[in-house]
């Protein structure tokens, strides 16, 4: 019973990156528990998904052919049935939006302790999970008791698994009880509009450090003086100060400019997901410990209301 079961994820016909990251996390863990790594792939074109998932270190891929897209009722029942069948020590799931829509239900039904948003996993006689608190200001280690545990892993924390494996691929039959109390009716793309920030070469991006909408013109002056493209973190869009198509991040746009100038942005993981591919990252922030400085190439520890006017002057 020291196996690891990892659940993969796909959307609109494609496996999502976290599916390959969960393989790496699962393999490392299975090496420590001394067990096998089992994968589950549920719904969609399971056959071709299973082929792609058959990477180095995977012992078995269990496919559940049920539905095209994510449906939490199907995922919950399928994972529970697989768990009962395989009896793994640790159950890994992605800490994605969909992961958060079924993992807590699975853990609750199976009566497993649940730790979400893991950034590190360690097994030595028991499971220890590393996770962050207070917007990444501190890191913690959490020991999880019990014989079996459930963990969701943060995306982009583990490298994607590579190589070709020789996993056993098998269809797993589950009797899914139809539940039409919640029904997915479709998808919608959001955040289109006039400007495509993903094409921009120089992005000036503004976060909650700006404090009030009235301070936005200051940044607009900078944008004009430098001929940059204006973007922002989520709270600015949530407040309605900028339209959704300006939001950079996990639920916004992914941008890859030559320079990303982050002003008054803390660098939360969901924001970083959208901008870490920039060639050069520059941060202006009053907090020297803000996580944005971890990924920045250049930084100013200082007040944007002092720095930005000076910067505008440089270019006028």
């Amino acid at each position: 019973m020291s196996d690891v079961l990892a659940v993969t994820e796909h959307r609109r016909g494609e496996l999502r990156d976290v599916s390959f990251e969960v393989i790496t996390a699962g393999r490392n863990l299975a090496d420590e528990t001394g067990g096998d790594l089992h994968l589950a792939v549920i719904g969609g074109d399971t056959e071709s998904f299973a082929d792609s998932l058959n990477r180095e270190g995977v012992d078995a891929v269990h496919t559940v052919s049920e539905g095209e897209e994510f449906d939490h009722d199907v995922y919950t029942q399928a994972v529970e049935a697989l768990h009962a069948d395989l009896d793994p020590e640790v159950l890994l799931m992605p800490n994605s939006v969909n992961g958060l829509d079924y993992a807590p239900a699975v853990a609750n039904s199976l009566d497993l302790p649940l730790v979400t948003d893991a950034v590190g996993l360690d097994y030595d006689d028991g499971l220890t999970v590393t996770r962050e608190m207070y917007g990444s200001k501190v890191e913690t280690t959490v020991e999880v008791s019990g014989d079996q545990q459930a963990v969701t892993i943060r995306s982009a924390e583990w490298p994607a698994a590579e190589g070709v494996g020789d996993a056993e691929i098998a269809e797993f039959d589950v009797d899914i009880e139809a539940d039409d109390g919640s029904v997915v009716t479709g998808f919608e793309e959001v955040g289109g509009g006039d400007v495509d920030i993903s094409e921009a070469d120089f992005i000036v991006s503004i976060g909650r450090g700006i404090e009030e909408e009235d301070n936005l013109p200051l940044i607009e002056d900078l944008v004009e003086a430098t001929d940059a493209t204006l973007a922002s973190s989520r709270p600015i869009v949530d407040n309605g100060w900028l339209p959704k198509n300006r939001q950079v991040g996990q639920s916004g746009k992914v941008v890859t400019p030559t320079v990303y100038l982050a002003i008054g942005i803390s660098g939360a993981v969901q924001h970083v997901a959208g901008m870490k591919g920039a060639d050069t990252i520059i941060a202006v922030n009053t907090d020297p410990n803000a996580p944005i400085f971890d990924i920045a190439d250049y930084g100013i520890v200082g007040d944007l209301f002092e720095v930005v006017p000076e910067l505008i002057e440089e270019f006028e």
Partner: protein
Amino acid sequence: MKVLVTVKEVAEVADDFEIAGTEVDERYLEYDLNEWDDYAVEEAVQLKENGPAEEVVTVTVGPERSEETIRMALAKGADRAVRVWDDALEEPDILDVETKTTLLEAVVEEEDPDLVLTGVQSGDDNFGATGVSLADELGFQWGAVVNALDYDEAENVAHVHRELEGGVEELTDIDLPAVLTIQTGINEPRYASLRGIRQAQSKEIAPKSLDDLGLDAGAVESDLDLTAMYEPESESDAEIFEGDASETAGKLAEVLREKGVAE
């Protein structure tokens, strides 16, 4: 219909702080209403103002101090509040999802709401799991990370959007009773008006112990043990510009010119 909103008081850490054992030293903490719950409260209050909801009740698991935060939710229009606390809850460094589920389940059973709204996550320990776990325990329908909600009274269905990654939203119809976890941006949370703040003073905050909820200390035994807390090691090799605002801005400008993005 009756809406129950989970409201959490979260701690925010100052820019400079110290860690004492496995906690941030109390001196560096400030308490506030959880950002995501603020949106959940607003959504519930709007359901009341627009007709379908008759009553909005908040539930908090928290010590007496959290009443200040609860009053904020009451000032924004919730009708009354339940606050669950017990000495047994002082013990664990983190309350695990199971404990929160058990406590909230007991309150749901007493209150019998049609709709439960929670925040997607809390800003301090960001587990992001309580709402869905609670729904499973109750046998309610659920939806996680909801950023649009349109309740159809005739059908008793919530038409919701779930905000997936990468600018894609999933459209889902969810029968009530249900638990929805609310994402920021779904609405514009109001500021508490002076009148609201005054009214909140006379609204009920009902304290509940484990005993009141028919639970014993065993219900709050945690499977999780916080064994260490530390400031993450920065792997940064960022070049930090030194000097006053004009010097640092000058150096920044130089980099921008060097990279050829601004002249």
